[in-house]
């Protein structure tokens, strides 16, 4: 556990450059700027099999290789530190405790694609972390590790830390870019993908904090060392953020492929007293929920998808028998309704409508046919919205109805209590 990015995470004062350096920090950048050509670096990351930790799991080396070698417009590295997915809190700890590891990752990414300007787009509420990052960047710059002529290599890289203003959608990479440029945070039409035409029209890579934090290790130890962990298709480790009524919730870095049961029962110490496991959302709020029958699924991208959910951001949300699934789903739907950017019809209207229907079921005013209506609304939303937020809003609803239909039906039966469907419908 805690083999790579969380290694020594609790070392006192790790935020300070001297401490970070004493623990082997900045060796990767030193080495790369001197001995590794940008193309070779991209190749190393490709070989490591590192996949994005922001949710989609896209191969990082491949993403970098899409950036054109020559470009009339400046190229950019943008770090997605918007971490707003309910149930996900890993980037926060990485940045709070080990900011220099991220800075190192940024410099390596910039070196690989030939960028001289980078941005960290950080969730607005993380004001104190923005300060930590700023302090780290200042220290690095003062030492010549950032800014002009890094480590005397002649390579320049500026870093701007930009705070978001509180919108979940700004974690979607293109909405993030629009927000960074000063526009309304709404996703952009793709193609063109950011790697070709991103920030201010220049080729841009957008990577998650955790993703970039892995890069120094890959440079220092080599791709093979990274591949020692995890599975063939999901190599390496990943941070799982566990929340809910388990004995030891928190962030744990584990090899991909670790079974859910091991995470919950061994590492988190099982359920709190008086709680019985009811449901788990394995990858942050935006993925389908499981009931307790899925404990033996290995937590890697492929295995989780094969069992009908997604690994997503690795936010493992545990719910117990004391949780009402109707209430939990309503709560999530309210979140998506609130965060829907409003650009596309199905998500703007669908989340609003779904919340209304779930709301009336929850308040004991559900109507016969409401579940079919909800499932219908899910199918007119899934795969039809502009960005993945729409799918994300539908998945919890559909999956919780599929897995916990009894609870929903009981609620609706109570509501109809004696009334005919017709009179129940006409309030």
């Amino acid at each position, binding site marked *: 556990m805690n083999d790579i990015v969380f290694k020594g995470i609790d070392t006192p004062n790790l935020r300070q450059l001297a401490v970070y350096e004493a623990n082997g920090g900045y060796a990767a950048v030193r080495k790369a700027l001197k001995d590794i050509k940008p193309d070779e670096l991209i190749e190393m990351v490709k070989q490591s099999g590192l996949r994005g930790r922001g949710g989609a799991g896209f191969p990082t080396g491949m993403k970098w290789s899409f950036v054109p070698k020559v470009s009339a417009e400046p190229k950019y590295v943008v770090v997605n530190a918007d971490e707003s997915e309910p149930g996900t809190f890993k980037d926060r700890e990485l940045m709070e405790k080990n900011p220099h590891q991220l800075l190192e990752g940024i410099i390596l990414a910039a070196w690989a694609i030939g960028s001289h300007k980078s941005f960290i787009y950080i969730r607005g509420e993380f004001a104190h972390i923005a300060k930590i990052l700023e302090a780290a960047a200042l220290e690095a710059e003062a030492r010549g590790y950032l800014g002009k002529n890094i480590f005397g290599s002649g390579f320049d890289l500026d870093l701007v830390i930009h705070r978001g203003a509180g919108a979940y959608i700004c974690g979607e990479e293109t909405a993030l870019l629009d927000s960074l440029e000063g526009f309304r945070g709404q996703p952009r039409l793709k193609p063109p993908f950011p790697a070709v035409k991103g920030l201010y029209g220049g080729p841009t890579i957008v990577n998650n904090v955790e993703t970039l934090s892995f890069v120094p290790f890959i440079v220092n130890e080599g791709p093979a060392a990274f591949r020692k962990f995890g599975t063939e298709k999901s190599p390496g480790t990943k941070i799982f953020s566990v929340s809910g009524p388990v004995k030891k919730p928190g962030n744990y870095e584990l090899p991909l492929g670790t079974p859910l049961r091991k995470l919950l029962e061994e590492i988190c110490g099982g359920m709190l007293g008086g709680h019985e496991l009811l449901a788990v959302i394995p990858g942050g709020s935006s993925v389908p929920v499981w009931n307790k029958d899925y404990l033996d699924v290995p937590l890697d991208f492929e295995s989780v998808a094969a069992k009908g959910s997604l690994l997503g951001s690795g936010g493992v949300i545990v719910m117990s028998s004391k949780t009402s699934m109707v209430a939990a789903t309503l709560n999530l739907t309210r979140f998506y309704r609130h965060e829907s950017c409003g650009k596309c019809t199905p998500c703007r209207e669908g*989340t609003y409508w779904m919340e209304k229907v779930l709301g009336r079921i929850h308040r004991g005013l559900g109507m016969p046919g409401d579940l079919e209506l909800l499932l219908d609304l899910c199918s007119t939303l899934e795969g039809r919205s502009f960005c993945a937020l729409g799918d994300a809003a539908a998945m919890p609803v559909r999956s919780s109805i599929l897995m916990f239909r009894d609870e929903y039906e009981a609620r609706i039966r109570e509501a109809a209590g004696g009334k005919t469907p017709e009179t129940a419908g006409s309030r």
Partner: protein
Amino acid sequence: MTEPKMVTCTIDGRTVTAPEGTLLTDAAKMLGIQIPIFCSHHRLKPLGACRICLIEKEKTGKPVIACAEMVAEGAVFHTQSEMALKARKGIMEYLLVNHPLDCPICDEGGECDLQDTSYEHGIGSSRFVEMKRSFDIVDLGPIVVLDRNRCIVCARCVRYCNDIMGDSALTIEERGFHSQINTRDGGELECQQCGNCIEVCPVGALTSRPYRFKARPWDLKQTETVCNFCSNGCTFHLGRREGTLVRARAKKSHGVNRDFLCARGRYGYEFPTSPERLHFPRIRQGGSLQRAEWSDALGQAVRAIQAARSAGKAVTALASARLSNEDLYLLQRLVREVAASPHLDHRLEQRAPLPGPLLKSLAAFPALPVSAIATLGSALVFGEDVNEEQPLYGTSLLREVHYRRMPVVVAHSRRVRLMQEAASGLPYRPGSELAAARGLLKSLAAHQGAAGPAEEVRKMTAGWSWEALASGSGLTEAQFEKAAATLYSGGSRAIYFGSQALRAAEAPDLVRALIDMALVSGASLVPLWDRSNSQGALDMGVLPDLLPGYEAAPAPGWNTAEILRRSASGEVGVLILAGADPLAHFPDRKLAENALRKADFVLSLDLFETDASEMAHVSLPLRSYAESDGSVTNSERRVQALRSAANPVGESEAGWRIFERLATGLGSAWNYADLLALQEEIRARVPLYKVLGRRMGPAATSWALPGASLPGAQPVGEGKAPAAAAAGTLRVESGNSIFHHGMLSQHNKVQLKLLPGPTLFLAAEDAARLRLAEGDLALLEGPGGKVEARVKIGGPSGPGVGFYPDHFAGAEANRLFGPESPFADIKISTLSAAVHS
């Protein structure tokens, strides 16, 4: 240009081959398959927001949006499969969640995309049973009314305003289902009031205050015809309810503008049915004009022409360039053939009208359609505030600057809109157009190879000193170099020029320099003339030195200035004013007054009483474009049909009918059974106009000068450098504003709301220096006299140069400016400060 790669794919079982990059919605259209759209729009980049265009793409697993999907080799699409229909039906149901069911009282009802699509997809009601959200209806200024309840948040209005018009007056605020349209600051719209947002709104969320509740679409008799203001030649549907025109709308127009209109085109429909129109012929009796019979009025005119001829005095004519080609053609036949006089012109505002050979050289350049702007490599706009005066060209250029950073050079004395966004600006000093043109020509020639005109031009320009050009124009050699590099950075290029260049005192040399620039750089050359049919007036030979079709006149006659000068000195027997008012438009108002007073006989044909008509001996009521069939030719040289959309007012007559009756009165055997017979003659006699037909918009053809080849390099004279502005004054220029055009629009109430009267536009820094504030009433004193005007900050002004639009009777620009130059140094004093609440 390389030929685009062709791609073949299948839509609904039929194959279609289209250039790579073609959007599915367009490819489907080629097969006659309509895919519904709301958020996408042909002028806008795809957005993909509304999702109504979802269709099935085989092997994709989920529906794709046809408005952003491109044709791909071998791809198979279905627009009517179960997946596609289900997806679209779902979107329709979502769109109706919060949409009120008020079609019966909605202005858009009957012309609504949402209504149409909802019929098509069989959605009558929604399963949504909760309360719909509701908003108050708000006025966003004098033109636009917003009903947010009907808005489907497609963002078309916002994007059109921002991307195409460059105004950013509208925005979406809040997010999610709270998303709603608002103005930038929540107040009134601060924009060109073009109303295109209303036009592109697929529902009735944005409606037009002037038209609101005036009619339902099915009550309207709608006729598509051509706008009569500027030379862009937009087409629109004029809607008439009973006797009155109640709206102009370009939705589904077939014009070169497609659905674009500027504020004056959209709101300039009132004047034809204004109660102030002239209804009857009038004859001067005892010092005033009295109603008369047509036969008497025409009889007097015929006798006057006969008298002039027998007295050996000149018969002369000045025409409006808003008249139709047919009117203009017969007018020149009347003057040349029947009255045997070569003295006619239509250019009233130009101080130095272009000589015939130069006009012919311009005509030798091939026509360039406005649609070509979409694929141009680069452009130069010289001496033309194209967004203010030629709005279709203006927005077309602005769009390319926004969407693909098309390299554009703008040369103008004021910081005009396009210059603010252009890659390169040449803000020359007012009056130094020629020095600026010479500087740019010198730079352009220096970049080019040794052969052909470039060589000749380089030799000519080699001797010009940069110091003189720089001090003459107020620009630096580096600025000229940058402008030249910008123009050369694109493949295919075009040079546009307009009113400021044409009205300059050194216009002929300026135009020669522009011809040289085009020759040297291989650019197309496009003059943007003032009025809706300026091009036709040139083509029809309403000129002292060219016959129809650019043939040199055997004995050149007098131009406007010469006609007026000769008239003032008693040499003119008859002065025909065919819709032309030299008192309003000729730079030397005193000379024009003298000319009208001293002519033996003045015959005025006009729509309204004007200063000139009231000095005439006989005044005849002319039909307006809205009551006329015929043709007009726009700046693309496209000969478009005019169609009458309203009943003639009173006893008004078409110009060509009046000229025919005068000619027969004078003994000619003219006899046109109808307009078609006259057009037949024009086609036969003017080979250029073989294209004359009953079409409009892109279907109408642009003429090409038969057998023309590009002219040779032109010698360019050296101008005089303008003097520095006199102390205590501000240099001010005049022209058309976006809200009006010439003097006709002062008869339109809506346009008067947008710009109510004489106005001085000032840059903020100049206003501050002169201690003037928005809304102040100021006294302007210039070489021509004094006028009073309201102060407005911004607009097409500055810095260091004011702008005084020329539209209002009693305060015409020629009462303020002197005859010498189109700008003057004006003394400005505050009469009364604006009342600020």
